[in-house]
């Protein structure tokens, strides 16, 4: 891997799984342990206009990852991300709304290997 340790796996992750409330599921910890990158979705308390702009920026970045074959999933409620992805022609990712860490681990563990082409034509 030329010293590059990336996983080619990214979870679009609802805020409540990045900053879990007391008793909530610490999705960030599970995703870290499983080697997934995280793209955090906006705090649902943000005003709609602000959320729309953040989601549009996230969708553009997801489009770039998808173009290269990275695996993208959605963890938690999307809060408008699937509509923002559709705007840039990206289909809705597979989704899990885990009630506990084990459910999230199981979902991540069942994902297929991503098929990535890296710069220079090297496989991921």
């Amino acid at each position, binding site marked *: 891997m030329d010293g590059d340790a990336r996983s080619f796996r990214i979870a679009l992750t609802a805020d409540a799984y990045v900053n879990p409330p007391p008793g909530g599921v610490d999705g960030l910890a599970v995703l870290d342990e499983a080697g997934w990158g995280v793209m955090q979705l906006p705090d649902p308390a*943000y005003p709609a206009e602000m959320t729309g702009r953040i989601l549009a920026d996230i969708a553009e970045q997801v489009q770039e990852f998808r173009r290269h074959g990275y695996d993208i999933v959605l963890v938690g409620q999307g809060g408008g991300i699937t509509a923002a992805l559709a705007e840039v022609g990206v289909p809705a990712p597979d989704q899990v709304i885990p009630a506990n860490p084990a459910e999230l681990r199981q979902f991540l563990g069942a994902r297929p290997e991503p098929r990535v082409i*890296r710069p220079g034509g090297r496989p991921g």
Partner: protein
Amino acid sequence: MSVAFVAHCLLNQNSKTDGGARCPGVYSPAVEVLRAKGWRIEQMPCPELAFTGLNRFWAVREQYDTPAHRRHCQRLAAGVADAISLRAERGEDIVLIGIEGSPSMGVCVTSSDPLRGGRPEWPDGAPELTSGEGIFIEELRLELERRGIGFPRVAGMTHPLPGHDEEAEKASLGSVLDNG
């Protein structure tokens, strides 16, 4: 509440320039410190990924310092500034966590080489590190100034720098978080 606005790649190493990902996904040392101290995490966008994509070359500040890239950073910085403004109005404690040595996200150390360009042939270890902010951080500072909001205190993650010491990096981050 205390909120850390973190560089995108601290939660997603997949966004790094090819060859630069230190770990599969989350850069755990930063998250460990934030969690241990009870800080909320807010991820900022990666300005380089959205502009030059996954196949970008390693670059220095001068290569990103173009009007079009500045406009791109201004658009992204406005979104971050919206969130910072909202939290600042509520009196929340805010820290910005950047990546030292980055042409975009450096907070105290960036990379610079006015002669770099063309076919990439420069030797590894070329002396590109220099004091200063990356371009996105600079644009965020300007956007917050325009809104009359003070720039948050900053912490720079040092793992891309030569001589990196993870414990020192964590201690330094912890110290910035504690000094509110």
